[in-house]
């Protein structure tokens, strides 16, 4: 989850998110370099004692500051497209989970083997135990195995919602009448949080997503219900 006043991205829990973080660093570095160059040029222009009222054209400079930005844009576009196609690769999922958005909770269906279907409501503030996260913790978490390609099928029963887990680099809209597919592989165990990312009414901010990623051996032992 994000910590208070966090500005940067959360640590990656999937290979795609690792790529996205690297790309973000790359693009941000280019932005910082351009900004500092412009600020420096502005500073020089504003503090010079020289005057020249006779400037007419500057063809060489104009050529440079047209070609160079074009090259920079290509250098940003190529890694971006690489990651875009990487997210669309045909991987061989081992598990399919359905996530259905409602106003204002999620329903998860594990129907590969038998049928486990449950709702996931945010814990109301009065029901929080010490140590629980306000507005983030839920009553039933989505338990999944690590290091397994998982296919999520996301849809909605009423209005638009969006199923997002930033640490996995996932955000997929839940659209009624549509069954959006997204795949991911988690690399480390843990509890990861996300929030509904498409305005859906009064309690849009109060329908979070919590994934609990556990080793495959423990996942295979079957659901463990705690009262």
């Amino acid at each position, binding site marked *: 989850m994000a910590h208070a006043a966090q500005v940067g991205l959360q640590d990656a829990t999937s290979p795609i998110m690792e790529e996205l973080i690297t790309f973000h660093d790359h693009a941000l570095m280019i932005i910082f370099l351009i900004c500092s160059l412009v600020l420096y040029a502005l500073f020089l222009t504003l503090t010079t004692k020289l005057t020249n009222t006779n400037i007419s054209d500057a063809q060489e400079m104009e050529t440079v500051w047209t070609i160079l930005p074009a090259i920079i844009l290509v250098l940003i576009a190529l890694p971006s497209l690489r990651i875009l196609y990487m997210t669309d690769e045909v*991987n061989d999922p081992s*598990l399919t989970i359905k996530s259905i958005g409602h106003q204002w909770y999620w329903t998860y269906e594990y129907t*590969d083997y038998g049928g486990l279907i449950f709702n996931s409501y945010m814990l109301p503030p009065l029901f929080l135990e010490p140590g629980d996260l306000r507005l983030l913790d839920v009553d039933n978490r989505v338990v999944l195995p690590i290091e397994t390609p998982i296919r999520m*099928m996301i849809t909605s029963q009423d209005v638009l919602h969006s199923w997002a887990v930033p640490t996995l680099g996932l955000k997929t809209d839940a659209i009624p009448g549509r069954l*959006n597919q997204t795949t991911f592989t988690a690399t480390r165990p843990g509890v990861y949080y996300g929030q509904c990312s498409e305005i859906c009414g009064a309690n849009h901010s109060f329908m979070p997503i919590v994934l609990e990623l556990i080793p495959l051996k423990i996942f295979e032992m079957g659901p463990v219900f705690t009262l």
Partner: protein
Amino acid sequence: MLDVEAQEPPKGKWSTPPFDPRFPSQNQIRNCYQNFLDYHRCLKTRTRRGKSTQPCEYYFRVYHSLCPISWVESWNEQIKNGIFAGKI
């Protein structure tokens, strides 16, 4: 209809529906619906010919894994009432 045990995957054999190149895009609604139709068509044809309906279990497992259960229940209700829009 097949009984529940017959439709369950063999132990250790079934994992999840594989990638279907007929439906490569993000919206998998067609994948879910097509397998639902194929299951019922398979049942109807094989029952009419007096053959075992065991091969139809594959389509059942695929649509069961992909389709939200509420959709499946509503389609089954429509089939039972004779108002299902698809061609079976």
